[in-house]
């Protein structure tokens, strides 16, 4: 209603993103870029998009940053309580059900598109969860604005039985998103999850250093320039009555 009168709501911070996941021989590899945008401006050049859900489960998030953070934190807490209750390692299917039922309940208003991956007793799992609550189970997955660029790389180079070279493939896919999608950029984060072990490689590849500029630097004036000073003593305007009542204590 307000937008009709020309008042627009504040823009949300989105993670116009490239996130990927792939299943390889020993487990799951997740990858993400590190740029967060607020419409057309980059608001964070190095944000974390791979969220912790459980020691053996991680989740990449695309969409509205607040939504991905909130929903993954919430499910992570719920799983922790569940682990205390059952005394067993969390399963990816549990996280999956919690996430998608939450998103479905909010009918797509929680704008979180997730790539959930982990290794549990039943083996490695990789799922794509859409904002409205649907999900897909795939050997390789991409989400976010750079998903097409990343999927192109996966479709041409993915094959079953990948070993550690899967990490390079994930990096390539994310880089395709970084260089070709405007909403993705900066560096590549990778998370490798295997049975009983995980490696969170923050800023695994940093390919975009600040362009070389002159080292001279700029001097910014520390104070605001004073253009005009006018002192107006108020005594002229205010009448001070000397015999008045003293103030009560």
């Amino acid at each position, binding site marked *: 209603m307000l937008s009709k009168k020309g008042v627009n709501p504040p823009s949300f911070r989105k993670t116009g993103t490239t996130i990927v996941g792939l299943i390889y021989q020993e487990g799951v590899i997740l990858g993400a870029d590190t740029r967060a945008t607020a419409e057309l*401006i980059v608001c964070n050049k190095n944000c974390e998009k791979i969220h912790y859900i459980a020691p053996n489960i991680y989740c990449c998030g695309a969409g509205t940053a607040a939504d991905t953070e909130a929903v993954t934190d919430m499910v992570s807490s719920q799983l922790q309580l569940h682990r205390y209750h059952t005394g067993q390692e969390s399963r990816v299917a549990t996280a999956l059900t919690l996430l998608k039922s939450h998103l479905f309940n909010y009918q797509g208003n929680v704008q979180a598109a997730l790539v959930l991956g982990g290794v549990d007793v039943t083996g490695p799992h990789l799922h794509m969860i859409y904002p409205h609550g649907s999900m897909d189970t795939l050997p390789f997955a991409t989400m976010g604005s750079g998903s097409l660029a990343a999927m192109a790389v996966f479709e041409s180079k993915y094959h079953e039985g990948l070993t550690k070279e899967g990490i390079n493939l994930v990096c390539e896919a994310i880089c395709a998103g970084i*260089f070709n999608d*405007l*909403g993705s*950029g*900066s560096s590549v984060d990778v998370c490798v999850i295997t049975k009983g072990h995980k490696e969170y490689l923050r800023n695994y590849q940093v390919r975009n250093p600040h362009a070389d500029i*002159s080292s001279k630097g700029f001097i910014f004036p520390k104070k605001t320039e004073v253009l005009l000073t006018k002192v107006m003593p108020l005594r002229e305007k205010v009448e001070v009555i000397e015999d008045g009542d003293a103030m009560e204590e």
Partner: protein
Amino acid sequence: MASSGFQADVKALQKQLAAKHLVSFQRYGRCITVFDLNVADGLHFSFRIYQHQHNKQMSCPAMAQLLSNTLYYRRFFPYYSFNVLGSLDNEGKGCVFTYDAVGSYERVGYGTQGTGSTLIMAFLDNELKSPSPLLLPAQDAVTPLLESEAVDLVKTIFASATERDIYTGDKLEIVILNADGIGHEYMDLRID
């Protein structure tokens, strides 16, 4: 003249002006800055039609007016093109004009257009205290920079704009107009 906006309209506008035998050059990327440098002597442009009709070279204000008229001609179906025009006037001083999409223009000391213009303009306002040419008594709108300082400043500005604006980046082309002619300089920017 540097233009930002919808590329098809930018090309169409430049064709319109080139048909009048103006030299116009396009700047790549979405973010443009043109500086007003204090240098001597005029630049040699070949404005053949203008020269034939008026028996003199096209002056800087005339060029500015021409661009404005070309843009306003399409007032009700505008060229989606935001321009910055730079040239040397009769005294050999640099002059910079900024335009909106329908031809409103103003002579300034420095100008920016494009998606990253807000990022850059604030920084330039802080660094360059160039007065408005509209002030009375008339003050020189020229920014007090040497050519090398200005080029360095442009490079820094674009590097910074590239960090925060998703549309700005890849490559930077700097065109320098001075007494010796037109010089081009290129610089690589972040490609993400």
